[in-house]
Each structure stands twice: as C-alpha cells, then as structure tokens.
C-alpha cells in the first residue's frame, strides 16, 4: 500500500508494526465499543503516520497503512466475537448482503496475501517431507502436509500447516498448552492461520514476544479458544 502511495514498503511495514504493538492500548479506546471504531482507526492512523515520519517516510502513507491494518483487525475481531463459527475467519462470515460477502472475501484474500511470505516458507518446508511420505491436502483454511516424517505435533506457517506422523487434523488433543479441554488440533491450527492473516509478517515476532512456545502465550490460548468455538484474536474483550 505504501509503495502504491509513492512511499517505501519498509515505512509501511514499520507503521503497521508500530501500530500493532500499540494495538493493545488503541483497542481500549471507548472500551472497545463499536461506536468508537472510527476513533480507534484515527488513533492508529496518527501512530502509524508518526512512525512513518520518524523513520523517514511519508506521514500520509504510514497513516493509511496503519488505518487499514486497524480496520482490518477490528473487523476480523468483531466477526470473531459476534459472528458464526465461519465468521471468525477473515472474510467468510454469514452476511445477507452481496456487498458484505464481497468485502469479507476481499479481506480474506488480502489476509492470505499478507500471510503469503510465511505460507511460502511453510509450503517449502512441507514439500521437503513429500519424498519421505508426507501427503498434501487442503482444509482448515490451509494447505496441509500430513504424515510429515519429523517431529510430533503440528506447526503453522501462514496458511500452511504441517502435521507430523501420527498427528492428523481431525485429532482430539486434551492438554494442549495445559488446557484440559478436548480440542481439535485442526481447528487450533486454523486459528493460527487466521492470526497470521491478521498480522502477516508481524505474527512471528508478536508470537515470540508473547512468550514463544509456552502455555502463557496469548496466541496459543486464543487458538485453543478458537478450537473451542471462541475467538482467535488474543486480546479480545468481553465473553
């Protein structure tokens, strides 16, 4: 978006990254009420624009990128909190109007493009297992590599999920990250794919900053909640 607007790609990324890091505070504006959505987008635009300016880019480009990212995240979050199960995925929620369906489809595609660098890495890693017996399927919002020869469990990179030998998308797994609920691993990984679609290249740094592979990681807790029928967004408010 920044490149199209005449700025440098890096400034747009910096703006979006800075805004994402500030999102916890921005999301608190108006206690998350829908009527304050415009205020939150405006706040994100100011933060993003300032970051772009400080890092040598154009205020307008940074503001636009950050505003888009905030609108994108809040839309997805709203769907997750109030929509049907499929509405939790970016752009696929139940909506009566053609315009709404088109918008969600566009958001879903944008999210998949946003997550594409990670998806490519995951796909390359997954394909490396094919000569050793790994199989390819599509499901849970991802390209799935099953029967992967190495490891035990599942790993998600963008819209690509790798299941080690013995683990399958349909498997029920009690005790994931200490969670005693009997959760479906495929749906847990699907939650991660949607997190990737929202955060794109910032997902992995954000995941790492949230504690890496640990029970306290907000992204893992959110993926567990998503598998149980809740929201995939780590910092959702309300029930």
């Amino acid at each position, binding site marked *: 978006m920044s490149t199209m607007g005449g700025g440098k790609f890096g400034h747009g990324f910096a703006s979006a990254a800075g805004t994402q890091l500030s999102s916890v505070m921005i999301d608190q504006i108006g206690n998350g009420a829908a009527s304050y959505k415009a205020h939150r987008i405006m706040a994100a635009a100011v933060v993003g624009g300032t970051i772009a300016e400080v890092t040598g880019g154009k205020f307008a480009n940074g503001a636009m990128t950050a505003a888009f990212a905030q609108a994108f995240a809040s839309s997805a979050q709203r769907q997750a909190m109030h929509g049907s199960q499929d509405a939790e995925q970016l752009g696929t929620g139940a909506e009566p109007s053609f315009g709404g369906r088109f918008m969600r489809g566009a958001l879903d595609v944008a999210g998949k493009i946003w997550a594409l660098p990670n998806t490519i890495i995951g796909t390359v890693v997954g394909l490396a297992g094919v000569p050793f017996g790994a199989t390819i399927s599509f499901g849970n919002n991802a390209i799935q590599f099953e029967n992967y020869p190495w490891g035990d469990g599942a790993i998600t990179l963008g819209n690509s999920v790798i299941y080690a030998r013995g683990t*399958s998308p349909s498997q029920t797994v009690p005790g994931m990250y200490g969670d005693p609920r009997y959760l479906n691993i495929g749906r847990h990984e699907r939650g991660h794919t949607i997190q990737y679609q929202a955060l794109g290249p910032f997902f*992995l740094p954000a995941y790492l900053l949230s504690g890496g592979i640990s029970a306290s990681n907000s992204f893992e807790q959110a993926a567990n909640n998503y598998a149980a029928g809740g929201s995939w967004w780590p910092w959702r408010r309300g029930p």
Partner: protein
Amino acid sequence: MILRALILGLIASLLAGCPYDRVHPPYLQNKMNVPVDVEIVLLEGVVSAGVLEPGGRLGFGYRPDSIAKVTFSVAEKVIDEIDALRIALMLKCTADPRLVTWLIEADGLRPSIPCS
C-alpha cells in the same frame, strides 16, 4: 534498512520459535460405534475428562510422563485403564511410537500393528 531488519527479525523469530504444537503419543482411535468417555488424571492431580466420538482420534498435549492414569469407559462401564507404567510400555511397542495407533475396542486397547 528497515526492511532488512524486519527480514532478519523474521528469520530470528523462525529460529527462536513459532507455533509448534506438540501432540504426544500414544495415539488412540475409537474403533467402536459408540462414544467413549476418556478421563485423564495427571500426577499433579488435575483431571481432564472428555468424549471421543466413534472413529475419533486422540493424542495428548500432556507429556506422557506427567500422566498418572487414563480411563476409557462406555456408558459408565470401564473398558480399559492405563497407568504410567503401561503408557511407558505402549510407547516402547515399536521403535517409533508415532507409527502405532492404539485402537479402543469393547475389550480394551490393542495396537494397530504388532509390537516388535
């Protein structure tokens, strides 16, 4: 400059950790046409109970050495129970425990392939 730093950060993140969700063996599958109630008791006393539908597959997020007992029952009748010692034996059934699925049947658990 910033893009380069972000790429390096991305690679560092990949190396340091990404969502790798462990699913520990033994892996099980309900081969009956009725749901199976599963109750896991951890060594620390935590109890995790759930239902495995017909055909459903089960793995463990808990480390096997943290499990004290797993009970399988149908209509409140226990069909099998595995403790820490039996879990350890199940994991030694073959050189690679991921290759064995333990089938839950009316008369208890049995391996999908013969133990070596």
